[in-house]
């Protein structure tokens, strides 16, 4: 085969070149390398890091495509050009080419910026540190466009990606060494660096910000509100969506986070392929339900009056929390990041539970920005090594006890 031979001789010829990792990164996407085992096991299992990462991306693709349709749908809905879809998940009003076209042209640039900027930094660091390009960013790069609001300006995204990859990951030594989930670091950076842009009710619908600027310029048009459900609840407003809309994802929100149905499918796929940790996902859901029940209990015990600013979110039925906001997406795709999560099986239970528990707590008590899951995961990322430390100490103590039993 010509191509195979040509690439091989090219690689051999340029073996000692500094930029070889950049070539190898592309080469190994085409061909599984010809590397053989030396000492140690002479055979190896079929999985490598690329396959693992690719599996996660496959699980996210349905969310991405749905996100494109939803972006268009929310756009036309807010502009009053179409009626609310009534046919559930398969509504004809939702799956239209018009919707897709709007979404496609909004979402694809986000994907491209995320990958180009992120991978460029990865390759630079790989060349500088003289190692192969690690695959960690393949997943991060796909996560990023899915967890940002649709109207995020591309330059902001680019700045955030640079920050997230360099400060969130490379300073710790790159893939496998980072403490914080890089995708969430990027999102957190966006929200704390550009709060006026990122919070509020405008960025969630494509075109709403532009419309606002037109009004400010004195044009006579209606303002558009594309408030998320969490935003409405935090302000004590009623929600205009029924539960099935929330489950299917026909609601405003970050690009890929709205469809709980598709996220659930992704979760099942990740659990089945054994790539995602079912322990973290399950315990996180349990944690969220427990916190939701506690708040519901407080409301029914009349501890919180209807006038309280926390009333809206506290009185939300506990299991609705799983369907709204980024909880489902965060739990399935980001809490399970193996590098930043707890690494011991016991630790994963504790880590997941606390993520769910804290997500809902932050949601309720932080009405300025009622999205808890991002902060909860970042917080638990920081605590994961501590959790693991105590789990491993349990094993160490058992060993020390054995010695003591002998001496006694």
């Amino acid at each position, binding site marked *: 085969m010509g191509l195979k031979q040509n690439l091989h001789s090219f690689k051999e010829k340029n073996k000692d070149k500094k930029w070889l990792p950049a070539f190898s990164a592309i080469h190994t996407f085409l061909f599984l390398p010809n590397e053989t085992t*030396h000492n140690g096991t*002479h*055979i190896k299992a079929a999985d490598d890091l690329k396959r693992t990462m690719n599996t996660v991306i496959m699980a996210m693709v349905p969310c991405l495509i749905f996100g494109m349709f939803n972006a268009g749908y929310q756009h036309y809905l807010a502009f009053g050009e179409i009626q609310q879809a009534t046919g559930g998940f398969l509504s004809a009003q939702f799956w239209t080419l018009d919707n897709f076209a709007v979404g496609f042209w909004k979402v694809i640039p986000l994907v491209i910026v995320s990958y180009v900027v992120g991978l460029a930094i990865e390759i630079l660091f790989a060349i500088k540190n003289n190692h192969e390009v690690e695959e960690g960013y393949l997943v991060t790069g796909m996560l990023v466009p899915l967890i940002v609001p649709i109207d995020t300006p591309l330059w902001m995204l680019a700045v955030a990606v640079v920050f997230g990859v360099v400060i969130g990951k490379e300073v710790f030594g790159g893939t496998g060494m980072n403490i914080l989930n890089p995708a969430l670091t990027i999102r957190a950076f966006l929200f704390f660096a550009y709060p006026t842009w990122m919070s509020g009710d405008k960025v969630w619908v494509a075109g709403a910000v532009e419309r606002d600027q037109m009004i400010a310029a004195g044009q006579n048009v209606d303002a558009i509100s594309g408030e998320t459900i969490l935003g409405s609840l935090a302000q004590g407003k009623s929600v205009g969506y029924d539960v099935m809309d929330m489950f299917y994802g026909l609601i405003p929100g970050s690009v890929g986070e709205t469809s709980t149905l598709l996220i659930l499918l992704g979760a099942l796929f990740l659990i089945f392929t*054994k790539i995602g940790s079912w322990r973290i996902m399950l315990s996180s859901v349990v944690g969220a339900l427990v916190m939701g029940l506690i708040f519901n209990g407080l409301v029914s015990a009349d501890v919180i009056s209807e006038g309280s600013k926390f009333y809206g979110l506290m009185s939300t039925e506990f299991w609705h929390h799983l369907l709204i906001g980024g909880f489902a997406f965060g739990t399935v795709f980001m809490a399970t990041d193996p590098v930043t999560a707890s690494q011991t099986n016991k630790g994963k239970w504790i880590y997941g539970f606390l993520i769910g528990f804290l997500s809902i707590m932050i949601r309720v008590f932080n009405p300025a920005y009622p999205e808890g899951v991002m902060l909860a995961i970042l917080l638990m990322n920081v605590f994961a090594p501590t959790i693991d430390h105590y789990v491993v100490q349990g*094993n160490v103590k058992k060993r020390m006890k054995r010695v003591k039993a002998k001496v006694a």
Partner: protein
Amino acid sequence: MSKDIKIKKGLDIKLVGEAEKATENAIISNFYSIRPEDFHTIIPKLVAKEGTRVKAGETLFYNKDNEAMKFVSPVSGEVTEVQRGPRRRIDAVKITADKEQTYLDHGKFDLNSDAEKTKAHLLATGCWSFIKQRPYDVVAKADSTPKAIFISGYASAPLAADLDYTLAGKEAELQAAVTALAKLTEGGVHVSVGKNSNSPLANLQNTITHKVSGPHPSGNVGTLINKVNPVNKGETVWTVNAQDLVIIGELLLTGKFNAERIIALAGSSVKKPRYFRTKLGSEIATMIYDNGVEREGNDRIISGNVLTGKQVQPDGYLDYYSNVITVIPEGDDYELFGWNKPVFNKISTSRAMTFSWLNPKKKYDLNTNTNGEHRAFVTTGTYEEVFPLDIYPMQILKACMYKDLDEMEALGMYEVAPEDFALTEFVCVSKQPHQKIIREGLDLMLKEIG
């Protein structure tokens, strides 16, 4: 206190090319080679210089740290070459064998002798080399007293020689060997046998038999130790390979060091996989070509099994401790989109478009391709699925990599040998060299703590 051991965590790697249960006499090798590297950390002091004539069982070299510990020639003949490496390190002592074999007579040993005498006899006759110790997985120190001795009579590794078959009829030798070993410890000689096997090891006197079942590494001696009586700080256990008991036993009974061993020739590159009667240190070439591998073939020859063995060249020699030669195809070729296409012909513990879970009984023809490049540790929980010891595998590997002696000790480094990490290395998504990391960790501890 015999105890049945049933493990769930592990992985049976089923490969094509299992040896058929028929034994042939290997072509008698003209050359034999004993390589000090097989005895990790032992520095040899040469006795038989080039040109010396030796009988089978006569000393070739001894341990520099303990002159009593001899390493002997497997055959009679002439020492024709002492290969040396950098800094005059001895790489191999090569013996050209006589046509007629003569044996040094060590004398029939009285099995009722006390521990001191038994120890001295084993050291002097070269049989000590078969006794290894943990911690550190090295030839046992002669001045150590083990809290127990462990022998695995169940081979669960891929394409391993079936010990029930290779040891059949050797009951007398096995009994003599374990009787002698039992003198050397208070904690007894623990022997594991397969649950449904009729192992000649099952009915020995002076032993404690454990029936084991479950996937590989159920037959690893490390698993047996961990489940029966794990090594604590300051303690030592000894291990002996079952097939080497035969050599020890025969020496005790007859006074002859008979290095004969039945080994399996296995692997998908072998035309007719079967068993051979040969001697340790024998040339590999005497076994692999007749109904075996193609002379021009692109194959990997391994002295040992595919998980823990050493790569050898066709003109290489049988490893001192191996009872299997495995030959599998080299995998030095590219595979278009090999990283993302569905995979049916390789083994995987995940289901990430890998389909070995569909048919757990299927036998695979694996080659030596790494199926991906070396990366940092990323995934978690995959090692635990195939690692039955009560130890955190990833944490201990990382402790070895950053050389934290206290942490290595606390996490259980005294209990492990590199082979215990063969399966975690096999499944490792990041293609990290686990066994090498553990070996280097053990060497560091041996140097710093001793």
